[in-house]
């Protein structure tokens, strides 16, 4: 009798877990399909290698661009998208992922493709307007409805008992912006670099999980219910609210944050081989058109065109934004000092965790 009971329970338990496996799989989403596809005359294929929270933006933009390009030239464009942590995506391109264009979270990642694989010209950041960033964003806080921990600004994050969700800066571009935004706030408020460092250290003391990418961190916070505040891309915060309803989450805008400039570039080495240079250029330039800018705005990225930005003025709160070049001296410096192996981030974590 007993044995039979056990035998009966096990398959059901497994079926239940399987069911969740299926759900989990669906909600996790996936990277876009891998290489393949035949190129015919009158049609062209582009691969856009991007980072996590641009899925929705490029889904909409790709449709619009394909239509525009077809009307203009009669050529059918199919755009494949690939998403993941920005650094990992850059490494993928370096190691042979045949990206025609890259639209990554950090200029540093694009630089790496140029440095390590030599397939992007070193002047890439001057080839398109606004440092090659067609839209900007910033880092805001997402908190649970009613803001139970009463979080208003960066100060509130270092209080004891507050759990912060942010991805690992070693693997996620967004997480590097988070780090720098917190640092800039503390430096402005307390004055010295030493105090800013201590502030960031306290902040990471309150971080229970380091996800590898921005979307993973959002899932941890939103789906798994972990943490009191998510440091998020502004657009990611808006999306979470739209998908799950305003009764679940609130956006808190800190007094100061960082001006995040996701950058785009065509990949010279690959487009010339694919014969896609012209369409790749067009694809990225169209991001600066009125329509491209509006699509960015609709997907909660701040348009770089001031006129179009004006249309979204109610959507984006005004806050003090510091610029990475002015404030930190550019990405190379930032990367070497803060995020390289054995850099500030590693040291801080080591100080916190080693006892």
């Amino acid at each position, binding site marked *: 009798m007993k044995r039979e009971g056990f035998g009966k329970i096990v398959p059901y338990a497994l079926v239940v877990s399987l069911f*969740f496996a299926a759900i989990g799989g669906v909600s996790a989403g996936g990277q876009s399909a891998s290489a393949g596809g035949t190129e015919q005359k009158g049609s062209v294929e582009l691969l856009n290698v991007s980072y996590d929270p641009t899925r929705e933006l490029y889904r909409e933009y790709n449709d619009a661009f394909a239509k525009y390009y077809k009307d203009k030239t009669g050529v059918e464009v199919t755009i494949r998208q690939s998403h993941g942590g920005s650094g990992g995506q850059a490494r993928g391109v370096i190691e042979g992922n045949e990206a025609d264009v890259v639209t990554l979270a950090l200029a540093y990642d694009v630089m790496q493709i140029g440095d390590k694989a030599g397939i992007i010209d070193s002047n890439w950041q001057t080839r398109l307007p606004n440092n090659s960033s067609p839209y900007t964003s910033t880092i805001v806080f997402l908190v649970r409805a009613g803001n139970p921990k009463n979080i208003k600004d960066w100060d509130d994050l270092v209080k004891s008992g507050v759990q912060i969700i942010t991805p690992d800066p*070693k693997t996620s571009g967004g997480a590097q912006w988070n780090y720098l935004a917190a640092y800039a706030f503390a430096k402005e408020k307390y004055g010295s670099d030493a105090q800013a460092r201590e502030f960031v250290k306290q902040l990471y003391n309150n971080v229970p999980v380091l996800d590898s990418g921005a979307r993973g961190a959002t899932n941890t916070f939103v789906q798994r219910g972990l943490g009191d505040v998510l440091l998020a891309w502004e657009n990611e915060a808006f999306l979470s609210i739209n998908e799950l309803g305003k009764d679940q989450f609130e956006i808190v805008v800190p007094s100061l944050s960082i001006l995040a400039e996701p950058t785009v570039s065509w990949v010279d080495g690959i487009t010339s081989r694919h014969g896609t240079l012209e369409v790749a250029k067009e694809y990225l330039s169209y991001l600066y058109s009125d329509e491209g800018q509006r699509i960015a705005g609709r997907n909660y990225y701040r348009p770089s065109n001031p006129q179009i930005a004006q249309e979204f003025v109610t959507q984006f709160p005004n806050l003090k934004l510091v610029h990475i070049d002015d404030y930190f001296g550019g990405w190379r410096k930032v990367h070497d000092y803060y995020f390289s192996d054995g850099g500030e981030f590693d040291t801080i974590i080591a100080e916190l965790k080693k006892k």
Partner: protein
Amino acid sequence: MGIRIFGPKKNRAKLPGFGLTLGLSMLYMTILIFIPLSALILYSAKLPIKEFWALISDERVVTAFKISFSSTFYAAVFNFFFGLILAWVLTRYNFFGKRVLDALIDLPFAIPTAVAGISLATLFSKNGILGVFLHKFGIEIAYSKAGIVIALIFIGLPFVVRTVQPVIQELDKELEEAASSLGANFYQIFFRVLFPAIFPALLTGFALAFARGLGEYGSIIFISSNMPYETEIVPLLIVKKLLQFDYRGASAIGVTMLVCAFVLLLLINLLQSFARRRKIN
């Protein structure tokens, strides 16, 4: 009864085709295993020994090794016992749904490990079906070391069940009957007659689950909190090194892991053949 490769003709094995099949096996092994692994070793061999040592004796790396090996060990031990029970139930008894259960055992082999990790995280997180319940008792599985062990148990289970199952199936009923007729009780029969016969296979299953778990990445990173010095596993550290374009560092850690795993598997194999010999004598 060894097979002599270079001997007088008459001493050669009776079965034809030895030379051909051995040649093919070696070619296959070379292409699939030796070349990739030696590439890894050669890559790390570019590092001066001092630097290599500095890399792998770094406290963070050492801690990651400890975490990886200990959680894999716990998971394999768990599977050692529960895999045995499962295999026992599946071979010795008949019950409704047995075939389904039997088929389900292999699923952890089949589904992508990331899917396993995400679904386990969903189940065990604070608002997951099991997590809600456990949370009430103050037990946190997701985002802790326990989460890593759970993921490893999940992916390692089939190895133990599938290696032990055929052995249990082959056990002679007569042995048990003889033991019973000589007055042995159930526990004596199990521990003195059956278990020694099953043990070598069980060790194989243990070794396989252990080896599989050491390299596991996909399922763990979703259920672990990935905190350096706390829940950071070696494969994650390797991926992080790669993301920093630090190929030498990554291969140094990879080689160290390879050597450790190989030594461990060798030990388990020796233990296993020892157990087998003892059984025969």
